């Protein structure tokens, strides 16, 4: 187990390293110059050159990349804005804030959004899916399947504005979604996130319903389940004792992937509802050609994806004793 984890983590670091290079190169392909954004109202070639120098953009790209890596691992005291302990992604070009601080600042929003939605869609999605499988062929099953089919075809960028328009702007039943710190005001934390949770988890729940149903039905046709039934065990006993555990395996995989990408920033959801999470930060950093911030979000998101991949693989060993990690 330990060897497996160590190997996977080394692999993840290599991938992150490559990803940072790609992002770095990508940024230097952008025709936009961050200096122009910082230059102010009276901008001219001299002041642009000056800003280039302050930001270190006049150095060759390899050197810039080396400085970036160095700072990331060891931190830096070279920044004019102040010290920057490791992991140091530098200071944002646009806000002059420490990138790592900004990421940690935005993380609670994304985590709240993701966890809240995940709880909803797991309970509703798995519940509906298993119920549909249990009552296979009945009206319940058909309604659930049809509903799931339609709802999983919906998109956040349609459902989100629709919910906002109806619930917020037309009827004024809800406040516009916003993030409030849980530790300061749990009630407004909850009310501020309720619409995004419901919308995000509606679409995911539909997908999980479909997955859980088909996975369960597949399981019920497995031999060990059929054997158990043949031995005279009741349907309910088999269903809840044997089959559901096996049906979880593919779902855990997908769930891990979903969580990973959501923790890295649910871009469209956060953008639609104007939530100040990592996803919105990413969009913002792209629009402002803010390389330090972009690199920070990119690497953070990728780390989340990789981390959850590893967690999923490790989780297999617990759910399915047949899987041996090597």
């Amino acid at each position, binding site marked *: 187990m330990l060897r497996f984890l160590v190997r996977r983590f080394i692999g993840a670091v290599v991938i992150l390293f490559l990803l940072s290079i790609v992002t770095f190169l990508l940024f230097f392909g952008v025709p936009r110059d961050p200096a122009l954004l910082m230059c102010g109202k009276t901008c*001219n070639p001299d002041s642009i050159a*000056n800003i280039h120098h302050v930001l270190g953009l006049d150095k060759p790209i390899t050197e810039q990349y080396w400085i970036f890596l160095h700072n990331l691992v060891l931190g830096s005291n070279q920044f004019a804005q102040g010290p920057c302990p490791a992991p140091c992604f530098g200071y944002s070009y646009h806000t002059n804030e420490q990138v790592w601080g900004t990421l940690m600042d935005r993380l609670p929003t994304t985590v709240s959004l993701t966890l809240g939605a995940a709880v909803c869609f797991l309970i509703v999605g798995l519940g509906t899916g298993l119920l549909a499988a249990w009552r296979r062929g009945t009206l319940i099953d058909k309604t659930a399947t049809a509903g799931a089919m339609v709802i999983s075809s919906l998109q956040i960028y349609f459902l989100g504005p629709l919910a906002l328009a109806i619930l917020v702007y037309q009827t004024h039943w809800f406040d516009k979604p916003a993030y409030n710190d849980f530790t300061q005001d749990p009630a407004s934390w909850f009310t501020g996130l309720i619409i995004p949770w419901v919308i995000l988890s509606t679409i995911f729940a539909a997908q999980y319903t479909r997955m859980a149903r088909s996975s369960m039905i597949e399981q019920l046709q497995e031999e060990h389940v059929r054997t158990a039934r043949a031995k005279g065990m009741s349907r309910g006993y088999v269903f809840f004792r044997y089959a559901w555990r096996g049906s979880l395996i593919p779902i855990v995989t997908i769930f891990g992937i979903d969580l990973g990408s959501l923790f890295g920033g649910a871009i469209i959801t956060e953008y639609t509802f104007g939530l100040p999470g990592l996803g919105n930060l990413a969009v913002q950093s792209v629009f402002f050609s803010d390389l330090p911030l972009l690199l920070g979000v990119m690497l953070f998101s990728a780390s989340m994806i990789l981390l959850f991949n590893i967690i999923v693989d490790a989780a297999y060993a617990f759910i399915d004793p047949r899987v041996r990690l090597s």
Partner: protein
Amino acid sequence: MSRGGRHAYGALSVLAAGALVLTGCSKGGSDSGTDGKKDQENAKRQQASIKFGGAADSTGPAAPVPGAKTGGTMEVLQRDSYAHLDPGQIYVSDQMSVAQLLHRGLTGYKATTDDGSGHEVVGDLATDSGTTTDGGKTWKYTLKDGIKFQDGTPITSKDIRHSVERLFAPFINQGPTYLQQWLANASGAAYRKLLPDGPYKGKHLPSSVLETPDDKTIVFHFKSPHPDLPYALAMSGYAVVSEKGDTKQRYDKAPVVSGPYKIQSFKSGKSMVLVKNPSWDAKTDPIRHQYVDQFNITFNQQYETSTKALLADSGADQTGLSFNNQVDAGNLSQVLKDPKMKSRTVSGYQPYVGQMNINMSHPAMKDKTVREAIAYALPVTPFVRAYGGTDAMEVAGGLISPTVSGYDPSFDPWGKKKKPAGDPDKARELLKKAGKLNMKLTFGYINTPEGQQYSTAMAAGLKKAGFDVQRQEIPSETYYDQVSKLNNNYDIFHTAWGADWPSASTVLPPLYDGRVIADGAQNYSQVNDPKINSEIDRINKITDPVKSAAEWEKLDQYIVKDVVNVVPTGYYKQTQIAGSKVGGLVYDDVIGGVDPRRLFIK
């Protein structure tokens, strides 16, 4: 799954989609109030001419606001966190608003009326708005007694010298550059050569430029006359910085302040708390008040959020407002229609004037008939629409905004106020006369949602008049850089310009003086007209601000009507709302928003 099942869910899918459709009905749009009435109100609301005050006007304390009480906490909802608090870096309107409470400069604007329209430039830290004996080449200021920074250290001429010298340091790159250019007698960024490292490496400005003979006296020496210095020094960008407390880049987050309020805490991107500054003495300050005990500023409040909270008027929001957030476009007409809500709002002009530049460096644009055709054809309605309708944008006649001395509301040479959608027939006629029907016209537009929206519609309007319009998108963050390049290939492009102080001397000379044409300069249309140039020189020498205002307006009319290198499009307006317990709510034309200095809690 069974076959039958899928038929069922196919049918159900259609039903579900149908159910969604049924809920999707909407009412139509409508305009608030009657347009005629509003225009009259707007015409009334224009900047009265500003004069420079003497020692008597500059003595504190400020005249009390009628009905004002002290005490209480005010909630302030702001959209953007303050990226800069270092005076040298402040040039953005929301930072300038909060700077009114924090920073003091040599001069400042004193409100002479209680409605925010009358102003006078007076001495703030200085005893008067400045004295000159040679028509604006040498300016002398004397500091008041009893002026202190928040840490209790007295403000001396050394601090003023330091504040000026650090403007030349490389890390100061966001603020205004008027004073630096005047001192160095240079244009563009060439002023930096005067003191490349600022005061930080032991070098100082020579006394032939800046003189501080004693602790109280500051003398500026310019090579050419600059009668506008009292205006310029009133900008937050030229407020005082403590020499002892200067932490260079880090000053931007924690400045040592001199105004009536100091920063108790500042969590960038989240919140800021301002409390009374005990070192501030009301007797020295003719401009500011200190009624409220504490300001709690919350950031990341979008326009809809702050509008909705303030409309609801419950709990802490009763004593809430926003210094800069506007009533959002969606709620605007509703708020203005309801007299109860409207009573809690203040409206006014932002300092910006929108204008369509015609690139005079392109051979095809040198034909005046063609430019006149553009002026007639250009529809202004798309621009007004994109910014939220007539409540947020007013069709412009000239280039001088209603907030600047000298504005003339009756000036409308291209009939935009009567025919805002343009006059394609007249334009087509002119184009035919010039023999340029179906000529190519490259239209550079800013790539924002608004820019995309109005540029497509403007292009459609110009096409109707017989232009072959080619739209080219320009990324929004670098838009102004692209259009201010001399060899840009845009025939027409839209820019907005706001006066830095309420005199057309910060509007017409930077935009239309043919001698400042350079890469990155603001003469976007690249017009070089001898009459404009000579008029600018002549009016710049007039030391009486009231007289010069009238002359600037004449020049404005000459540019728009006879040179036709720009077509004015709109005056930006805004409406702001506050909670029911907020007193002293006034829209200040110079600040371009709520005046934070007069606020109190009822």
